[in-house]
């Protein structure tokens, strides 16, 4: 696919700026600043990697799901995540990178994925809590991206957000069933909430004061809200939901602030956040090794399919030539 646009550079840049200013979408064959392209590749690739790595902690329970209905739901959910990864890799590919290349960078740890998936799933309640809190936080992050300035990314997000809504509801519904079940189930839910609450808050990134480059992404329409705005929205959403479940969020500083019309909450442990990003999370090594193994074990399959397609094409050509 080749397109040449021979307008002078300054005219191209003005066109790009005008499109952004008008809140219109940039499309793959439009001219765009190199820094915009690279920032998008990083963000979309990391988003795609997160979907694919995110299959592991939930996949961990498919074979042990406690009812056939839960088994079907979890299988469908993890399958959705593979689909989301595909949509997102495809969006990244419109920017001139290749999915294989991005996968290589992932398994060589040259690109990151969301640190939340470096935490382990230790009980079935974790499946519910991931749906409720982790997918809930993801929805807070993702809904604004449906209006992101880059067309293919925004469109991928529209479909993904629709499916994420199912993910969050199935999680909450599972927790609801569990808190209305046995004492052991209720304890399992509370213990899981205790483990996941703070990592979920960390999903929004460090406080805004520590995010000096966000401004450029905001100006480009890639980022729509600050980290703290999104975190606040998430906390305010989660509090009444926790009450409906009858679980306690493990933050003694969590309290309604009438003046701000929002909840005050405690400070996440940013040292843990940094450590997990840097590779010291409970499951970092396991997740990457798992992804690497799957990719490498599949190499002979991908090569075989390619070789077969080449043979077929050669045979077709031969048939065409002799016909």
């Amino acid at each position: 696919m080749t397109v040449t646009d021979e307008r002078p550079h300054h005219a191209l840049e003005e066109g790009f700026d005008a499109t952004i200013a008008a809140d219109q979408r940039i499309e793959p064959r439009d001219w765009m600043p190199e820094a915009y392209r690279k920032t998008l590749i990083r963000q979309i690739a990391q988003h795609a990697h997160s979907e694919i790595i995110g299959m592991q902690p939930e996949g961990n329970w498919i074979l042990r799901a406690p009812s056939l209905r839960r088994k079907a739901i979890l299988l469908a959910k993890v399958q959705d995540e593979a689909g989301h990864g595909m949509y997102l890799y495809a969006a990244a590919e419109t920017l001139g990178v290749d999915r294989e290349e991005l996968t290589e960078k992932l398994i060589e740890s040259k690109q990151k994925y969301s640190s939340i998936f470096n935490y382990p799933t230790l009980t079935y309640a974790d499946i519910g809590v991931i749906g409720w809190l982790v997918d809930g936080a993801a929805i807070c992050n993702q809904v604004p991206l449906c209006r992101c300035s880059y067309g293919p990314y925004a469109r991928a997000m529209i479909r993904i957000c629709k499916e994420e809504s199912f993910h969050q509801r199935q999680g909450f519904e599972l927790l609801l069933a569990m808190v209305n079940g046995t004492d052991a189930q209720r304890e399992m839910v509370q213990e899981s909430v205790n483990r996941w609450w703070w990592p979920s808050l960390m999903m929004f990134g460090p406080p805004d004061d520590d995010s000096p480059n966000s401004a450029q992404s905001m100006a480009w329409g890639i980022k729509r809200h600050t980290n703290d705005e999104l975190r606040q929205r998430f906390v305010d959403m989660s509090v009444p939901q926790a009450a409906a479940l009858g679980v306690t969020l493990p933050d003694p500083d969590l309290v309604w602030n009438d003046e701000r019309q929002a909840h005050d909450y405690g400070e996440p442990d940013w040292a843990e956040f940094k450590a997990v990003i840097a590779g010291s999370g409970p499951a970092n090594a396991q997740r990457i090794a798992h992804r690497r193994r799957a990719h490498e074990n599949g190499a002979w399959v991908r090569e075989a399919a390619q070789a077969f397609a080449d043979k077929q094409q050669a045979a077709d050509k031969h048939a065409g030539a002799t016909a």
Partner: protein
Amino acid sequence: MNAHHTDVEEHDATNAYQSLSETTDHDDPRWAFGTGIVEEAGAEITSSVPDGVDPGDLAAYCLMLGDDALIYSHRLSEWVSHAPELEEEVALANTALDLLGQARVLLARAGHVEGRDRDEDALAYLRPDAEFRNVGLAELSDDLDFARCIARLLVFSSWRLAVLHRLQGSADPVLAAVAGKGVKEITYHRDYAARWTLRLGDGTAESHRRMQAAIDAVWPYIGELFRTSDEERRLVEAGVAIDPADTREEVDAVLDQVLEKATLTRPERPFIGTIGGRSGRQGVHTEHLGHALAEMQSLARRHPGATW
């Protein structure tokens, strides 16, 4: 431009994705089965047992077909996050979901017919190994070898398609409904497995070697597929079941055709035998089933009486 196209069956042209965004009532409790399979065909789990049919036989037969699907689906789910490409992740999960959907209806029907107050979960999670009635082929793990995955799916789907195809005329309305929807699903699974058999068999030297080894490995489990149990024999007479022995010719022909086109050799290997005439259909399994059930049932059994 080399556009390659197909017109997928359009007998239900209104059931298109555009209409999916329109609101439908998904809170209907029947959806708990997750498939709509029985409702679509207008059959109910609680339909009465056809005249002249022994309920014990019918329950056993539903368990046979249901356990095949359940255990196969469980083993296929081992692939999640391990597939060779993302597109295959989606395809394998779809196959596992289809089979799980079939299993749930069949187990629910078995539970209703036997009248011992066991639902699909009681049957899936609380039965001991010897009460499972699936064939050995369903309980094998692929051990994350994609060639094994394809070989096993080729054999299983070719056989199950032949079975379900004949079962569409069953006198039992639930079996007929499961077969009606299942035929469409399994046709798709068989197509997937056959195409991959060609690619791997006639791909690279390595893939050819692996695919041949995989066919060799699953071959001993084929014989059991065509053995007729006593329950089946009695139900055939009542027009409820089909005789699996009758599917042998069709399955053989399909396998021969695919293997030849894939440049693979039909193995000359003996089939696994029975113990005192008994095998999977009578609850006598390979060593593999115990491990699959130990994992599958572990959480449900740890919390007796819990609902999820």
